[in-house]
């Protein structure tokens, strides 16, 4: 089958994709995993450590330190006000 060229936005060269810094409030997390499973860039994984209530909060996956695009999804979906991001580029 002939290769189909990937569709690219016309302004792909000029658009700067933002980079986000992830902030977490570990003690608020109840471990629902909404942020981890539905982050569009798969930036987050469960922590090795538990918080005081025994929940594993989200941390940035190894190698994903600059993968967050600051889309704000995790902040909106987190039921516990336990995660947010800020643009660093």
């Amino acid at each position: 089958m002939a290769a189909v060229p990937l569709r690219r936005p016309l302004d792909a060269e000029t658009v700067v994709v933002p980079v986000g810094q992830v902030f977490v409030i570990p003690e608020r997390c109840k471990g629902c995993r909404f942020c981890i499973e539905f982050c569009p860039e798969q930036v987050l994984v469960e922590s090795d450590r538990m918080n005081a209530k025994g929940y594993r909060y989200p941390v940035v996956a190894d190698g994903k330190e600059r993968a967050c695009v600051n889309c704000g999804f995790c902040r909106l979906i987190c039921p516990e006000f336990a995660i947010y991001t800020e643009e660093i580029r």
Partner: protein
Amino acid sequence: MSGEIYVQAHPVDHLVRADRLPHIWCPGCGLGSATACFASAMVDSGLPLDKQVVVSGIGCTGRVAGYLNVDSFHTTHGRAIPFAIGLKLANPELQVTVFSGDGDMFAIGGNHFLHAARRNVDLNVVCINNFNYGMTGGQFGPTTPLGARTTTTPHGNAEPPFNLVHVASSLGAVFVARWTVLHIRQLHRSMLRALDKRGFRFIEVLAPCPVGFGKSNDIGEGLDEMWFYRRQCVIDPETDLAQATIEMKHDSRIVLGDFVDIERPVFRPSGWEE
């Protein structure tokens, strides 16, 4: 380059009573997501926060009013809408949002909903539909899908449910939408549209209640219900609302969208001065 940074506070903490966090809602419950989304929409609407008020009834959803750090009132069961109408008429500059559950708003409070929508009272109404009475132990209610198992319908619910968006639009609500808490960006945008309109605005928000509904209906935990939404939902703003009943079956679709956006004269009691 570092990964996550640990902090103690959140950018919308000023809008929630952060001293009351963590809230009472169960792990995997969708209520916190809907609340976080609405808190952001309140800020992003640009309306002064001292002009925005929130009224809830009774239930797990009824707790929302108590967690938001604006003027709010947790009314008696089913009476959020009449209380909100009074607020709105006495102080017309307020942006009054009613935030309550399917049972509160459509069982005991159903009559108030019908008449407020019919009159086009200037209210922003958000109903969290988790298909059951979560707070009191998972009883069936007016939005429980046909055949669903709850503590009071152990052999399957025999009653057809309300199709809330169809009810609202048939009564002339000027803005009608349905989203799930997984579709949180669309919900946020929809809340902003609703906050920017006058008249009776209605958003149905589907949310997991793993304790009262998910586990007894082959759906599972909150996260499983989110994946269920991902698989089963279709966005179709032009859909025929009469057909938009929710079945919550693994082979049935859930239609989402901002369905109605019209203008209609807003309610003023007869005889009131301009």
